[in-house]
């Protein structure tokens, strides 16, 4: 079973921000935000044609500044939020804003990516609203309410978590509530994740070596995992199927899996990277598949069966399975469960700061390294069939 070769796409600029287009469930589409201090920054819309193995791109101008974080609205394909640096007279401020893609961008996507006309006459993003946070400091990320109607976002700014209501077709943003992390020293949220469980009432944030959980109804802290990592925590992700399970990664080269009901010990430790781990992502459908990206330039796909929601393999829920296949299923449940590294992807030459699963195809993911290289990879077929059958 030959696996398809990875597909590589190069950006002209350095880049850190990557997201899949969350609201899009048919096309495999990723959004990449660039970082450049001298030129107009861009948002690259990468479309991947799985059958023909072809990438097509569209470029939108993001003139406000270099993009540090990007996230797509779960409700409206055309809406996205970015955190960007605004440099003005020896001051660098990071702001958040919600944007709408111009409706015409899709027409350009049919053109060849090499068409100079397309890349040199990009269209601009349409600003919907600023998440004005002048009083709250630098925004580190903007989080959409998972599976929501695209009316709520949370932005993390320094030591504040701000819950915004977007009204009037997202052109108005008002702070509905906020939480502030108090403590000695300069506290700063480095990462956050809005939990898709509990009716989307929980938020997890990372600052320095600690992970905190927040209840959004009262904007109060629920739990705090002090010293979750030996060094800085870089990223978090919730298990999409198990409500108390949380993955974190950080500068101690480790990926840790937590059950937030028992915060004293991680459920599982992964120590495969040889430098800081910048990003960790659960697969949206099969939560045993965990993707991590690190500044050792590697992307690692792990199979964490033992702590997944399918510890005994995929449950048979299709009615049309024959008896023979049922038997096969029985055999499979008896197989010992082994957490393992599925694959290490070494296509990157520079630090990988972002990895993301496609929202349309659960077997496909993209990773982005600082030098602007986007690599699209697939889960090995053998494993895919093993999970499916």
């Amino acid at each position, binding site marked *: 079973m030959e696996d398809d070769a990875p597909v590589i796409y190069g950006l*002209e600029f350095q880049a850190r921000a990557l997201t899949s287009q969350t609201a899009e469930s048919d096309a495999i589409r990723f959004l990449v935000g660039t970082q450049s201090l001298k030129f107009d920054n861009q948002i690259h819309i990468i479309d991947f044609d799985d059958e023909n193995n072809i990438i097509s791109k569209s470029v939108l101008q993001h003139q406000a500044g270099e993009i540090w974080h990007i996230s797509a609205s779960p409700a409206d394909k055309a809406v996205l939020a970015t955190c960007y640096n605004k440099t003005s007279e020896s001051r660098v401020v990071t702001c958040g804003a919600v944007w709408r893609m111009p409706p015409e961008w899709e027409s350009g996507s049919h053109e060849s990516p090499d068409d100079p006309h397309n890349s040199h006459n990009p269209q601009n993003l349409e600003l919907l609203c600023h998440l004005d946070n002048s009083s709250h400091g630098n925004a580190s990320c903007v989080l959409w309410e998972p599976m929501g109607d695209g009316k709520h976002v949370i932005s993390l700014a320094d030591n504040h978590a701000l819950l915004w209501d977007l009204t009037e077709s997202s052109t108005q943003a008002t702070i509905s509530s906020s939480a502030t992390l108090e403590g000695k020293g300069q506290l700063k949220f480095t990462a956050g994740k809005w939990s898709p469980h509990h009716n989307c009432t929980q938020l997890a944030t990372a600052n320095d070596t600690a992970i905190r959980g927040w209840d959004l109804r009262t904007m109060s802290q629920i739990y705090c995992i002090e010293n979750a990592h030996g060094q800085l925590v870089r990223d978090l992700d919730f298990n999409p199927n198990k409500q108390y399970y949380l993955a974190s990664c950080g500068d101690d080269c480790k990926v840790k899996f937590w059950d937030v009901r028992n915060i004293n010990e991680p459920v599982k430790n992964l120590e495969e990277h040889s430098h800081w781990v910048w990003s960790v992502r659960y697969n949206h459908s099969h939560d045993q598949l965990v993707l991590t990206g690190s500044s050792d330039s590697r992307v690692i796909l792990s199979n964490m069966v033992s702590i997944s929601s399918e510890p005994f393999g995929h449950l048979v829920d299709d009615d049309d399975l024959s008896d023979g296949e049922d038997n096969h299923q029985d055999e499979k449940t008896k197989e010992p469960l082994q957490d393992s590294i599925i694959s290490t992807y070494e296509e990157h030459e520079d630090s990988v700061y972002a990895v993301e699963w496609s929202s349309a195809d659960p077997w496909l993911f993209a990773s982005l390294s600082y030098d602007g290289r986007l690599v699209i990879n697939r889960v090995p077929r053998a494993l895919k069939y093993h999970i499916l059958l």
Partner: protein
Amino acid sequence: MDGDICATATATTPPDSDPTRKRRVHGMLKLYYGLNEEGKTVDQAESMNPCDINGTHFDPEVYLNKLRRECSLGELMDQESCMVKQIRSLDSDMQTLVYENYNKFISATDTIRKMKNDFKKMEDEMDCLSTNMAAITEFSAHISGTLQDQHAQITKLSGVHTLLRKLQFLFELPARLNKCLELQAYSQAVSSHRRARCVLQQYSHMPSFRGIQDDCNAIMDKLAQELRQKFRDGGSSAKDLSECVELLLQLDEPAEELCDKFLIHAQSRLEANLRGLEAELRPPLSSGPTSVIDPSIGPARRLSAAPTAGSPADPTFPGNPFLSPSSRTDILEFIDRGCNEFVSSLCLAIASYQELFVNRPQEGNLASKNIPHMAIGKLHAFVDALATCYFSLVERRIQEEKSVGDNSLLVRALDRFHRRLQAVAKLLPGSAVPSQGTEIVVRAARERIKQYLAALQSFYLDSLRDVRQALAAPRLGGSSAGGGSHLAGPATGKDAPASLPELLSSLSASILNQIKSVLASVHLFTAKDITFSNKPYFKGEFCSQGVRESLVVNFIKFVCQSSRQFCESAGDRGGSTPPALLLLLSRLCLNYETSTITYILTLTDEQFLVQHRSPVTAVAALCGEAREAAQKLLNHYVKVQGLIISQMLRKSVETRDWVNTIEPRNVRAVMKRVVEDTTSIDVQVGLLYEEGVRKAHSSDSSKRTFSVYSGSRQQTRYAPSYTPSAAMDTNLLSNIQKLFSERIDIFSPVEFNKVSVLTGIIKISLKTFLECVRLRTFGRYGLQQIQVDCNYLQMYLWRFVSDENLVHFLLDEIVGSTAHRCLDPAPMEQSVIEVICERG
């Protein structure tokens, strides 16, 4: 042939000896008469010659003719005269013989005649004798007939006499028994009674005998009572006691009851001994095991405690565990006392019991009752019960023996304990007591090994604590002194590392010594003069499983494990372990891997002649474990040290406003600190690890140029920033270039040498620097400051690493990334940078 020899013998015999001469004469006569075979043989020899005058075939005619023909006249004359002479002598010889024989014949005739007369006389005498005998026979029969009646009467009278004597004995019996009782001549009484008993029994239907019997029985009951009393009192000697028992047995006392009584009696004495022993023990805590013997132990202990009332352990502070009395005697004394009192008493009891009940010659109806069988059974139960108590006491005492200081005392005590039990084994073959005793010894030995392991472990941890303190103490002084100095250099490095090798050697030496002394202590268990050393357990399992596996191997494993724990526990929770300790332990584990483990195990195997019957841990496996631990420790050391420097760098990058910084005047202090720390780490590692290999330095390693524009990599790498028109091409170029440069693993395992360790630390630090720079935005002077800093780092760091290109590469990346993140990338002149760096 025979004849020949005889003939020649006769012929050659010299004539001077008389007997031979006589024989010769006889021979001649025989010849003459032709009596003998000799003659024949001679004849045969000479028969053919008719001229032989002595031959049988002599023919005078022939002879004469021959003479006449052959001889002259003279010769004939001579022959004739000679012949005449011979004839004459022969005649005289014949005459003599005839005369002699005649005389003999005459005397023989006389003798025969005389004999004839004598026989006649004898015949007459014999006839007379026979008549006399007949007369005597007749008389005798007569007398016999007369005396017949009287003899019968006498016999009857004699019978009556005997009966009367017996009766007299019976009538006198009560009185006699009484007297015996008074005189305490019990045995006499019993034997008298036994003699009379059957008779009395038989004639008990007669009133008179009945009376006697009753009297006797009453007396005997009294006697038995007295005997029992005596038996019960127990004060009497063993001989008395045995006599007592024998008499009682003869009196048909039930043997079982006697056995029981005897045993109960012995038990009380033995239990007194046990109580004495228990009093020696530390009084059991209220929650602890209750007294083995009985509740009356309380007063007994109090009594025995009275002499030591001066000790602080007195009733005034009964609840204070600190003041609770430790054992008043050492274990040897305790066991001694146990042996001397309990075991010897037990042996004595067994011996006398066996004497009394088991080994007695069986007589009469007693034999049928199979007393020995019953008695042995009781004895076993008795001994087992008491031995159990004794053993539990001994075990309690052994368990109190926690201090591992002097093993010889324990071994000697156990030896004595075991040796004395052999006496029981000899006395009571088939008893479980000796084997139980051996088990106790085995258990004690096992326990001991465990204790030694614990002691070794705690010793190791204590040593580590000492090392930690030794490391911490001068470190404080060193860092405060070195903090102010500007690039102190290796010479004035911190004080602590100077003593690292000494610490290491003293640590490993003290551990080794401790192991050796423990081995020596444990070795006592297998000494030749210890009785239990030849038990199979001590020959096999104790050596291999006990000493080698449980003690030595487990200790080595513990060392590795505890070392590994330093990596794990300290890793996440803020690194409480001082890095120097990690380094030291790593070297320790490495030393273990290379030599110490082999040495220790060889030593053990030699001392204990370990026969590897059961599978044991291989040396290689242990070495592997040690190496793994060493590797882990060293990796962790690199991580920790790298983290310390990383943190400095990160803080320095994160907390500064790089956009609005001023023009660089000098190298930032944090860089100096980084170099200083690296230098001191280098010194520290160099104390314990070898230099290692590094690639050849270029001639001007410290003078490398960092230029944003002239750097070969940067130009192509980040070209898009400056030449946007050729974006795709340059991107491709940079990627191609990257294909040829090796990927750098930042947190990769290090080798066991200084250069590798330092390379690891510097890699981690610089990578952190790079990642932090990428997260910031710089102004013009920010970039220039980074240029200065990197140049400074380049000047000093290249010498520490295995491949200076690594430092170049990482510093290149840092400067390049900074330039890229710079709002106004106007780099500083290289010459200015160098001036600033040299100024310091």
